[in-house]
């Protein structure tokens, strides 16, 4: 089956594969990427069903001082309890929801704004390109984490502002990526060919340019989500992100830190959660890059 699908330039048959289908097959043959995808799927499902697994008010927020700081055990709390006696696993599960929502929406925001700017800069060029690129120069000259910190500092620390701050700091990156791929694709002869058969600007952009830019954008999207998870955790760790008692992985890590000497599981476990999520996204991102651009194979 696979052999047949990988065949190139032999006699093609009816119902053959599009580039996207071929990329998908290549992705599926990459063990790391599949592992990443499986992990992320489970994570997203857990986040969606978090309320079914643990009740937010009674199990995630409500304190239970008598059972505080219990180490992980198979009988009681699987991952132990925190300094207020709350189940760590419950807080992790609900924390995943927070991390994912903030990261995902900030990256979507950045893609929407940055992508539009980049596409405009790439397609129209000239003055528009110049203005947009100088703006991104300025934004890129500020270290991203710092930029997010400044925005949160100015607007106040809460989830919405965190999302805005992280989104804003990723805008220039998407603007660059989209512009670069639009520029490459715009030069392709099939774009000229589309114009020569009388296609309008809209048709050219939607049918010919964007579908061919999608590869690098998907890859960047995945990698930016990894970065956003990191930054969400980082800002919460500094106390500038999601505010307690709402659970977030970086926040869990920050509060666990106080007890690191004697209750190290409180800092080890949230960190592992952050790391494995980022790792999964990086694996998927690498796999996507190889699958969408098989030149190096």
């Amino acid at each position: 089956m696979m052999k047949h699908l990988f065949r190139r330039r032999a006699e093609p048959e009816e119902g053959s594969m599009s580039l996207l289908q071929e990329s998908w097959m290549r992705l599926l043959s990459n063990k790391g990427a599949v592992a990443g995808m499986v992990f992320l799927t489970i994570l997203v499902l857990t986040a969606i069903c978090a309320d079914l697994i643990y009740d937010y008010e009674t199990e995630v927020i409500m304190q239970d001082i008598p059972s505080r700081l219990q180490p992980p055990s198979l009988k009681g709390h699987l991952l132990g309890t925190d300094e207020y006696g709350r189940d760590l696993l419950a807080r992790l599960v609900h924390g995943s929801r927070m991390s994912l929502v903030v990261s995902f929406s900030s990256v979507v925001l950045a893609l929407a704004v940055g992508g539009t700017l980049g596409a405009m800069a790439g397609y129209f060029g000239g003055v528009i390109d110049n203005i947009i690129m100088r703006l991104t120069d300025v934004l890129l000259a500020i270290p991203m984490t710092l930029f997010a910190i400044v925005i949160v500092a100015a607007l106040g620390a809460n989830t919405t502002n965190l999302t805005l701050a992280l989104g804003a700091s990723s805008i220039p990156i998407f603007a660059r990526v989209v512009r670069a791929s639009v520029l490459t694709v715009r030069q392709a002869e099939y774009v000229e060919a589309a114009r020569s058969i009388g296609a309008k600007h809209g048709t050219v952009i939607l049918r010919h340019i964007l579908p061919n830019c999608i590869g690098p954008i998907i890859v960047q999207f995945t990698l930016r989500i990894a970065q956003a998870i990191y930054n969400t955790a980082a800002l919460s760790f500094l106390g500038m992100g999601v505010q307690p008692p709402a659970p977030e992985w970086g926040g869990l890590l920050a509060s666990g830190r106080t007890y690191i000497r004697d209750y190290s599981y409180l800092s080890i476990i949230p960190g592992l959660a952050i790391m494995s999520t980022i790792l999964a996204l990086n694996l998927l991102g690498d796999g996507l890059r190889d699958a969408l651009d098989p030149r190096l194979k």
Partner: protein
Amino acid sequence: MIRYMIKRLLAMIPVLIGITFLVFMIMQLAPGDPARLILGENASPEEVKELREQMGLEDPVLVQYFRYMVNLCKGDMGKSYITNRLVASEVAARFPYTLKLALVSAAVSILIAIPLGIIAAVKQNTIFDNTCMVLSLVGISMPAFWMALMLVLVFSLRLGWLPVQGANMGWRSYVLPSIAIGFMNMAAIARTTRSSMLETIRQDYVRTAKSKGISNASAILGHAFPNALIPTVTVVGVQLGGLIGGAVLTETVFAWPGLGRLIVQSVNARDVPMILGCMVVMSVSFSVINLVVDLLYGLLDPRVKSMYA
């Protein structure tokens, strides 16, 4: 080359103006009245108004920005709202700590990462390569502040070899912070070196070099590597920039008396002049790094040099 340098230096100016303007404007959105912050809750509205006028806060924002820039050019960044100390001297006292830590960890990570990347590329798909790549993937996925905590847990708390925090124990203070900061950079640089080496090793000019009768090793080090360095330098630049941003976190974990910790403290205290001062210094350093990277391009790639000749 000198013309190129001057050109690049001049190009930095509008970017710096842009950065200060942007940060200045964002900080204007901050709630709370600095005059009230300084005078305390009990001050009368008249006193507050007087201080506001004195501080120039009643002027239009653009005038305030202009005044800030004029002062900045004179080296005056204003006074802290909280401690009333000069921002410039405070920043100057903290900056060397951040810089030293960044340089140490950057130097070590570059020196380790580049050879690793080269060897991994040459020995593609061997155990060595695979191990390096798995480690570096973990490396780029591990949050630096968590790694810092884990290092402290193992080497300071459990083994007691190195200090938990602070910068007052000589070289021993530097070990853990620089590993925590440098590990991710090392991983990222090794990955880039490897992938760009894989690309350049396949280039026609490497084949040409071999066809002249030079050894495989000289073809790789003399021809593939100099070309692979060009994209690697870009990533090194990005990573060094990341060091400055990342300093905020590691300095917090290690209670390191650098700029990163200062900015966190200032944000928590809403000390706007201090935040601005730190941001300016950090962004300038970031721009300087980018400038150095661009100059390196000129050195490494004659095509770039001749564009500005």
